[in-house]
């Protein structure tokens, strides 16, 4: 397969055809922040934090690097006033829901985000979908799903599946950027999985 040559932050970068800008950047040691990305999963494009400025055939646009395919001659800027503004606002929006999440706190520091810009409504989950997708794509169990849409969207365990599968797995816990998942599981478990709960679960990350 022919290699693609593009420019990221002034640096010439070579990537395989079909790779994404994020892949190419990471390979070249250029950092782009992400919240919903995990190598073992299909790219999702939900958090939009990995947005970069791209210039192709004289046209500047803002694209999510985790999904945007590399192309020859593409010029990518991973930081710019507008990129930073997008990231800052996304962080501020998420901090209304998970103000103490360590990953968000670190990002807020880097991008000068104000955690109090929007009124707090802590629901802790930032709906990155890592748990849901890990369970579906890697474990192929579909024990977690999204319910509701828009601001009503939330993750939910499917009791019939979770009662069988989750106690011995919990591989999704460490993926959660806010640790909400673990708390949710323990809560759901205590309420729903009565038979399985006979065997106490140690809360481990």
């Amino acid at each position: 397969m022919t290699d693609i040559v593009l420019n990221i932050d002034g640096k010439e970068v070579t990537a395989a055809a079909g790779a994404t800008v994020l892949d190419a950047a990471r390979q070249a040691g250029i950092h782009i922040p992400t919240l919903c990305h995990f190598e073992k999963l299909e790219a999702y494009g939900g958090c939009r934090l990995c947005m970069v400025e791209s210039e192709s055939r004289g046209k500047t646009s803002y694209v999510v690097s985790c999904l945007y395919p590399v192309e020859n001659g593409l010029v990518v800027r991973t930081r710019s006033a507008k990129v930073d503004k997008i990231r800052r606002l996304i962080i501020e929006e998420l901090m209304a829901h998970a103000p103490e999440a360590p990953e968000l706190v670190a990002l807020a520091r880097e991008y000068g985000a104000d955690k109090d810009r929007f009124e707090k409504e802590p629901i802790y989950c930032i709906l990155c979908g890592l748990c849901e997708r890990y369970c579906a794509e890697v474990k192929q169990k579909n024990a977690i799903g999204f319910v509701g849409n828009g601001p009503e969207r939330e993750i939910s365990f499917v009791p019939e599946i979770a009662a069988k599968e989750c106690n011995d797995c919990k591989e999704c816990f460490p993926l959660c950027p806010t640790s909400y998942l673990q708390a949710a599981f323990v809560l759901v478990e205590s309420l729903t999985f009565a038979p399985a709960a006979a065997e106490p679960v140690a809360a481990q990350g």
Partner: protein
Amino acid sequence: MPKLESVAALESLRSDILARRDATRPCIAVCAGAACDGLDSITVATAFKSEIAKQGLEGKVDLRVTGCHGYCEKGPNVVVGPKDVCYFEVTPEDVPGIVSATLKGEVFEERVYKDPQTGAKAVHMDEVPFYKHQTRLLIGDNPKIDPMKIEDYIAIDGYAALAKALSTMTPDEVLNEVKKANLRGRGGGGFPAGSKWETTKNAPEKTKYVIVNGHEGESAAFMDRAMLTGNPHKVIEGLIIGAYAIGAQQGFIYTRHDAPRLVEHLKAAMAQAEEYGFMGENILGSGFSCNVELHFDVGIFVSGESSGLMRSIEGNAPEPRPKYIRTSVSGIWDKPSNLNNVETWANVPQIITRGADWFTSIGSERSKGTKLVSLSGNVVNSGIVEVPMGTPLRTLIFDIGGGVRDGKSLKAIHFGGAMGGSIPADQIDAKLDFDEMSKLGAPIGAGGLLVMDEDTDMVEVARYLLDFLVKESCGKCVPCREGMYQMLKILTNITEGKGKTSDLDRLGDLMEVTSAASLCALGKTASDPLKSMMRYFKDEYETRIATGGGAGSQAI
């Protein structure tokens, strides 16, 4: 009915149908479009049926229950052919009078149009102000068709365009005609349909799909369902012609699950089209085959977004996906999929029949043909209107629409539903043109036009529209889900008198990031109404924040 095996068989069937009909015989067309149906026009139709039976007039007077005529404001609508005498607000009690007058070649004066100011009457369709300023190339056939009867469509030259394309044109010639006609997509973007077709046609995969987007989720838009319910065969004919040009073997019609009459008519029309051989295997003996399936939405606005719609047809949740690779190249099951909206497809047959040169003679320089517009809000005559592209908004709102209700003055004109924009009354001479309206910040969208009077509260309008969209976001991406939610909270605070001076700043950032960073068109355009407000009505927002509310009285 045996399947038609050739173009000659179609023409012979058409002659038979016409021979059985007497063009001079009176035909009473009762509108059963959504608005008239809601006004119980079926009881009017039933009354006509009984009266015709009672007077023993079968064979002397025909009765037809049809799709939407357009003048929703004055329903139930009745049009008596062949001279197209229009009766409005017809009740079952008027029926004997209308039948008697019709028999005598007279007019039942009580229900003809009367000018609200002068009292002057208008009897025929081409004299009624609402109709006479229109060019009804698409919706105009509705009164002539019982949508459940394919014969009615064949009688008015239905499927002649398909026959012409299959028997006398190559797929490339069909494509070139549509490109030359510069038919631009009627669903919102105004993207040239011919270029889109060409992309799908040239995509390497052999399996290709063509799709009708009949979702019409845009608030204040109701013309597509009038078209699809009232004249389903025109859309099917356009779709099959497109499939032939593109080389698609499979078509899909994606539409609303919650419009029973639409579903009934479409199912019947598709069954008949298959029976007669206009879709399915070896269409009209041409060797070209294309099957069409009907799919229903899942009750969420975003299932009308192209990639969301395609996920839905695949059987998945209608979550949009990024279109760095266009759906015309990689759509349903990653196959090239050409999606056009109902009105776009409906334009195809006449382009083939009458040619691109004729089509481009109608409209403005860069927007050709006519446009269906759903006219509503504080306007005297709400309804479905069809005018040439380039028609001034003044004609739409005043000549056709009869002006603003209750003698009030015009404050704003809103186009494009919840993702459109509002422009002030002084833009009344702007033209209905894709590019001109986009530049003004009120893109035509699918064609929902809302008239807003002097009492309209522009903060409430933006809040109302966002409140709708917030609930329709799928919630997958952060800027759309959270951005709209925060904008809605700020606007709600302002309308409740709790606005802060910093709010406009925060709104500015939210608008910018939501449109730049959202995954699909819903989030990208969700703040467009608000952007138009900041462009034309910012002082109203500033005053509301400064005075702590207590202003306007109504939304739309």
